[in-house]
Each structure stands twice: as C-alpha cells, then as structure tokens.
C-alpha cells in the first residue's frame, strides 16, 4: 500500500522564501493585485495537459508486456514523460504571466533529482505499508514509477523557483491512485496482476492521468 512523495514539497519549503528572483523583476508584471512575493504560477485550464501517453503505456503494460514487466515500462516512461513535458505540460504552465521556454539543461538535472527522490519515495512507501524484508526491488521500481510520473511537476517546481504550492496536487493524485489501487490486493482471485507491485503501478498511472488532466481545474 502506498501513497507517496510529500518529501518534495517539504524539501523546498526553505526555498520558497527566496525572494531574489521576484525582486530582480520589479513590478513589471504587477497588473493586478498579486502579492509582490508570489508571481502567479498556474497550469492553464486546457485539454492539452491530458497525458494520453500514460493510457498507452498502461495498455502496453497490462496487455502487451510479458508478465507485467515494470522495468521495461520504466524505460519507456522516461522519453514519453520528457516529450509530454516539453510538448504539453510546460506549454501550459504559466509563471508570472508568461509561459517559460523549456530549459533543456534543466531536464537532465530534474531527471537526476527524480532519481534521487526515489529513495525517500521508497521509504515513504515502506512507511505506508510495503514489506521491508522482501520484494524491496519491486518496491523501488514502484517508487521509480511514482517519481517519474511526478517528473513534469518536479521540473516545473525547479523551473518556477521552487514554488511548490501549485504542484503538490500532482503528487497527491499519484499517491491517491496508488492508495485506491491497493483494494485489489486482499481479493482471493489469485491473478498474476494482483502481485506486488502491479496494482500500485497501475494505480499510480491512473492517478497521474487523472491528476494531470484535471489538476488545473482544482
């Protein structure tokens, strides 16, 4: 059972007081009553943010892949998430009234950060009930999936000066997806997809799909 990743918001709380950026752009974009310290950050309400590739990947995972191969899925997820970020998500993210260009140098940094986040994420998943002494590799793969699914949000947090508030919901969506999917674990159907961590991976994908699709409206 797992929810995940509120480690990210935590970590960056200290940064959110950093006013250097906001001060460096004095009042150029203060047209309406936004507090000086917080330029508006939001994701546009558009159908464009729907991460359809996640459904495709899920179809591959459940129907095509050999015995729910989560590792291959992980490799496939990386390019798709980068493409999603550059083509869809980043183009809908508004920071201080404009859409920032994708900073290609930041992408590998964020990927690295995502990778690093898998460890706290793993710990959180264990804290929320995953087995410790066995299936640790599977749990880590699940953590990697969860973190990579959060990758667009991680990038945006990096790109928007670690303002976490608006992007927290994406992590929560993934976590809730995982959490709900746990329901199938106790069922006595003895299907192979009930094995750890398959239902949670599926739950995370669905959670991420819902989160990225309707996130801007929340």
């Amino acid at each position, binding site marked *: 059972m797992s929810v995940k990743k509120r480690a990210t918001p935590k970590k960056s709380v200290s940064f959110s007081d950093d006013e250097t950026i906001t001060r460096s752009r004095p009042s150029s974009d203060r047209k309406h009553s936004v507090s000086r310290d917080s330029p508006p950050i939001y994701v546009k309400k558009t159908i464009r943010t729907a991460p359809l590739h996640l459904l495709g990947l899920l179809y591959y995972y459940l129907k095509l892949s050999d015995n729910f191969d989560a590792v291959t899925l992980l490799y496939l997820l990386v390019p798709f998430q980068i493409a999603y970020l550059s083509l869809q998500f980043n183009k809908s993210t508004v920071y201080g009234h404009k859409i920032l260009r994708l900073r290609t140098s930041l992408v590998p940094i964020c990927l690295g950060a995502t990778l690093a986040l898998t460890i706290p994420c793993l710990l959180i998943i264990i804290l*929320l*009930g995953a087995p*410790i*002494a*066995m299936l640790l590799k599977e749990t880590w793969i699940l953590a990697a999936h969860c973190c990579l699914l959060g990758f667009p949000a991680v990038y945006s947090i990096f790109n928007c000066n670690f303002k976490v508030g608006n992007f927290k919901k994406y992590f929560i969506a993934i976590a809730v997806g995982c*959490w709900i999917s746990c*329901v199938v674990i*106790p*069922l*006595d159907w003895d299907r192979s997809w009930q094995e750890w961590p398959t239902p949670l991976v599926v739950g995370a994908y669905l959670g991420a799909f819902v989160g990225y699709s309707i996130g801007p409206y929340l």
Partner: protein
Amino acid sequence: MYKLVVLLVAQIFAILTFSAGFFPQKSVSKGDAWFTYRPDIHEQIEPRFGKLILVVVDALRSDYLFNAEMSQFSFVHELLNKGHAWGYTTYANPPTVTLPRLKGITTGSTPNFLDAILNVAGDDSSSSLKDQDSWLRQFHTHHKKINFFGDDTWLKLFPEEYFGEIDGTNSFFVSDFEEVDLNVTRHLPRQLASQASWDVLILHYLGLDHIGHKGGAFSSFMPPKHREMDSVIQQIYEAVDEDTLLCVMGDHGMNDMGNHGGSSAGETAAGLVLISKMLGKFEKPARQKNVELPLKVKSDDYKYLTSINQIDLVPTIATVFNFPIPKDSIGVVIPDILQLFSPQEARVKLLDNYYQLTGSTDKRNEAYENIFPVIEEMRSIQNDLAKVATDYNYYLLGVGLLVLVAVTSVVLIECVKHSTSYFELLPTFATTFLLSLSTFGSSFVEEEHQLWWWGSIALAASSYIKVPREILCHVLILSGLRLIRGWNNSGQKYVYEYTMSELLKCHHQWLWVLNTITIFSTQLSGQSEHLVTQMTALFVSSLSLVYKAAWSITNGEPVPFWLQKICFQTLGSGGDDPVEQIKQNLVPTARLLFFAVFVLILIEIARQRISSRGDSRFFARIHSLTTAIMILQTSSTNIPQYLIFGFIAAAIETLWSKYYGTSIFLLMNVGLVLQHLTFFQFGSTNSIATVDLTNAYNGVSENYNIHIVGLLMCLANFAPSIYWSLACLRALYAKKRASSKWETFGRSRLPALLFYCIFGCFLLASCVIQRYHLFIWSVFSPKLCYYVSWNLFMNAIISWSFESVLVALY
C-alpha cells in the same frame, strides 16, 4: 443520554435476535434407527468385531501419522506396513473444534455452527446428544458396556447412563502437556487386564492439541508426544486379540500455528488408523499398497493415503458391529471394510447404507455388479446433504434486521444533530461505509486488517495534508503504526516470515529488555510524582514483569539469564525444583496482581471522591492501571507494542487538541480505527481459529469458573482495543470542556454506535443474502460472531458500561 442508552439496548437486542435466527438449533431426528434394507438378513449377520477401542488424539493431523518428516509413530508405521492397520486421511467438516467434531464422529451428521461457540462456552446442556441417535447410543441399547477416559466434552455430550467407568479430564488447561494425558493412560493397564468387563473403551488424549496451541505444529514438544501416543497404541495392540478393533484418530487437524477452528487444509485433515490383527488377513486399501510408511513425500494439502470423510467412520462402525446406522448419519461406509463380509453380506450392508443415506426405498440399485459406482453415487449424495444448510429462522432474521435498520436511522439522525460540522462527520462516514461494503466480499472479511490499515494511513496522510507543519508528529504516528503493522501476521492470505514478533522470539534478550521498558514505563508515566504512588507503580510493574517471565519459563520459552535469576529468587525459592516451584506460584502471583490493581483503582477512585474532584489526571491513572491488566493478558511477544501505543497516543492527543478544535467525533473515529487495527495486529483474525486461549487462565486454578475464564479470554483478545478505548476517554477529558461531562460522554459514544449500526446492517444483510454461499460457515458466520462480541464486549461492556462508571466517578 437516555435516548442513546435505549438505542444501544435496541441495537443489541436486534443483533441477538438475528443471531438466534441465524444459528438455530438443528432439528434432529429422535429415536433409534433400524436397518433400512432387509432387516431379516441383517439379523443373521455376525458382528465382525466384539470390542471397540477408540483412541482420539486431539488435533492429530494426518501428517503426524503418515509423513516421515513429522511423524514419530514408528509402531503405527510398522503395523501399516504389515497390513494390520489401515490408514486414512479424514476430512473433518469445519468448524474444526472438538465439540462439533465429536458430534460428527458419533452421530455422522454435519455440525451446526453454534456448536463451535458452545465448545468455548462450556457447560451448556443444549449441545447434548441425549436424544440423538449415535453409535454410542446403539452400543448402549445393545447392552454393551462403554468405558470412557479423557476429555470431558464427551461427558457433556452423552448422558451418564451410557458409560460404565468414567474419568474426565479438562480440555481448557492449554498449558498442561503431560498430566492431562497421564490421567488417561494410568487407567489403561487395569482396563486391558479386565477386558471382559467392557465392550467399548474410549480414550481421548488432549496433550497434543495443547502443545499445538502453545507452540505450533512444529513445537519441540511434538516428537516426544508422538512417541508417547505411539507407545499407548503399542500397549493396547499387544494386549488385545483379533476380536478387537482399535481405532486411532484425530478429531480435527491444526494449522501450522497450532490453531484450529477454520477450514484450511491442515485444520480439516485429521488422521485415522484402523488397527486389528484381523485386518492382516485382508487386502490393504489400494493407496496403501506398494508404499512404505512413513511416506517420504510431503503433501501440501495433507492428503496422505486414502481420503475419506470423517463421518464415514459412523456407518463403518455400525457395519462391522452389525447394528443400524444412526439416523442422522450422512456417512458412507469405508469400502475396504466390506472385505470383511461375504459378498452377499457386503451387498446387504452397502445397500442398507445407501437406503439410509437417501432415505428412500427405491430398489433400482439393488442389482449392482460393482460396489464402486454405488459408493461414488453415495459420495455425491453425501456432498449434497452436507451442503444443505441448517434451517434459518426467517422470522427472527427479519425482526433482527428490521429493528437494526430502524435503530440505525435514528442513530444517524442523532449523529447529524450532534455534530458541529459535516467535516467532522466525514471520516466516520468514510470509515463506516468502507468497512460496511467490505462485508459482502469473503476475502475482505478474511483480510479485514488490511482495510483498517488502509483507513488508518489515509487518516494519517490527510491529517498531514491539513497540518503540514507538524511533520514530526505525523512521521512518529506513521512509523509507530508501521511497526505495529509489521508485528504479527493477520488475515489468511499472506504470511510474512520477518514479523516483529518472530524476530523478537529469536532475539529473546531484546524482547525482554523491551518488555521491561514497556511494563515499567507504562506504569510510572501515568502516575503522579507522589512517592507512595511511584512505589505502588513500581511494585505493580515488577510483579507483572516477574509473572510474565515466570509464565514463559514454565512454558519452556527462552528467557534471558538475568530475568531467570530474578524469577527463581522471587518465585522459585523454597522447593527442590525451582521450575516446579515457579509453576505453583503462578496462580497466586497473578491473583495478587489482579488484586493489587483492583485495590489501587479503588484507592484512586476514593482519592478522586474525597479530595480532587474533577482532576483530569484521574483517567490517566486509571488508564495506566488497567494497562497493567492488559499487559498481563497479552502474550510476551506483543507487550512492546504498548510502548509504541504510548507514543502514538501522545502524538495524537497533541495534534487533536492543537489543530482539530477538540472535535469529539474525529477523536472517537481515530480511536475506533486504532481499536480495530491493533486488535488485528495482535495476531487476531476474523476466524475462530485465532481466539487466544493461552492468557485466559491467568490466576485461575484447577476448578475454574467458566465465567471468569470467559472474561479473561475476552480481556486477552481485546486487550489492545481496551487500551485505545480508554486512551480516547483519557484524551476526551484531558481538558475542561464547556459542555457537561455527560453530554461529552454521550456525544463521544455516537461515532462507534453509528459504526456498529451501519456495519451491522450491511453484515446482517450480507449474511442473509449469502446464506447459501460456500463460505457462509467458514467466513461470514465467524465474522458475525466476532461482530456480536465486539458489540457486546467492546461497545456495551467496556465502552458504555465500564467507561460510564469511570465518568460517573470523575
């Protein structure tokens, strides 16, 4: 407040009415059976045996008799290989506890679920087989003399006039492995020397079952017990002649934990061996040919040699002793035994069984050529008959369900009326409906602990999202809960090897260090700084630690040296054998502890009445004193959990009073979740098999009172839940409130009442809808029993009665 009491009473009335309709007494046919097919021929058939010796070894699982790895029955193996014994694996119909199984073994009928409860409840005349036909009754009416030695359940079941000499032993002293069996065996030499004086000898040994309950199926006490039983069989075999049938059997099996009651493969697979020198003249059963006992191959479903139904023993005994098959029997005669008769006689016997089973006189099978198709047909009839559920009393079911629905709607209105906002009702409703819906799925009932865990992490996580700045508190709560979750296995599906309790069992030094810290800290922290109270707290905790350690020593569990020394010096001095001395001192020590805590509670109450009325620390002190009792009623590997409870409770209390506006509904909902979560993480499940009896005899002497044992059993099984119930009460009155104490109390009872009501509606409906479900007796009925006991014990007795007394004194 009075309205709520009325609601509670009505709710309990509803579920008891429903239970009375759901677990009805089975209608039994009275009177004696007679041969159903050609009685004239039967009367001329000679009985094949003159004497029967039935040796029931409680919980003798099939692999204990037949598997090379487990079995130490070397003499039985020798007989099996020689052909003087025929071995079978018998399917014991659940509930696999002694009383229903004995009914099955003697009457051949399928058990009634209520019997499983009566097995625990003890002296109840309603389970008597006085009027029901059984092979004992048949022996009795044929003027045979029956001598009985062993488990006194038999004496509860059958009227005394059936028996000649009797000596009953008690099945409830689970920690006694030897004496209980020696009390049976000591009669053997005299009985075997005077064989002319009896026709049937029944021996029922309990030691093996006790070892299972204490130490599991692989206990180190098992092999010596096997050898002891084996030597008993040898002793009997060597003393009797060809005319005697010796039947050795288990009444049920056990799972690897040593428990039984459920329907898993291990619990239902009991061993059976028919032994007689005469059997050597006939062919061995097909599956026993060409194999060498003990069997080297391990069978995962415990099916060794020929598999039959346990109740098949009944027509088999009836057949070989040539008397009518008992009326309610749905057994099928063991085909191998028909060899003992001439073909014509065998045919008559088989058809008699066939007609008795079908209840018809249809002659179409009369001209059979081979017995096997007939046997096959009888087996399928037997299966159908076994499936037919007992008659439900639909009138009572309807009344119970309707009253409960009515009560539930009133409680629902009350809840909405008494809550300050819908927000505080939300978690209660979420928990309630989540659990309620789960009652329709058998696997969710079996794995209920997962749902509670699922709910509790959701509560913790959502609380964190609400108050992100209290990260430490939330991490503390979650880590504590995670540790508790990893403490024991619960449910039926997954078994993890590396649970905390297993780890602590292997590292007993750590276990006892933790236990010592837990016992002392729970006592000392709750008390005031006053020197006298500190001293009494110290006294209570030392006594409790010494008792738990002494208990472990007498049960052969490893205890660190330093603690052993303390035990020997305090309890073990004075006698020649310190362990024996400790054993004798256990009961007085436990009594002293109960007495001390009771007196301390009284003193606390008196102090509260005289001087500091309204002192909020009153509940804290009572809580820590009752925790002493709870710890006494907890098995040693679970004790450190109370230490974690302490941290979690403190963290929750802080969060609740700081951020949640002291909302009563929220607190009580958290309490409800924790009560259930910890109940399951102490190792309990929704199966009768995991009812913990080991702590039900603390401070109880040989001539025990069933009510006290019942109370102690409830305390032992609900210990962590009682802890949390009182912890919530303590938090509730920690600060002065605007409302009166009774108003607070009334409101605080609502969430749990709402939960039990709604959950009850769904569970009862689920039981009615699925009354013909395959798992109705193995999953849903036990759940209903647990639900009733949660209601009666946890809700009515602890949460309402006990706590209201405390509040009244406050």
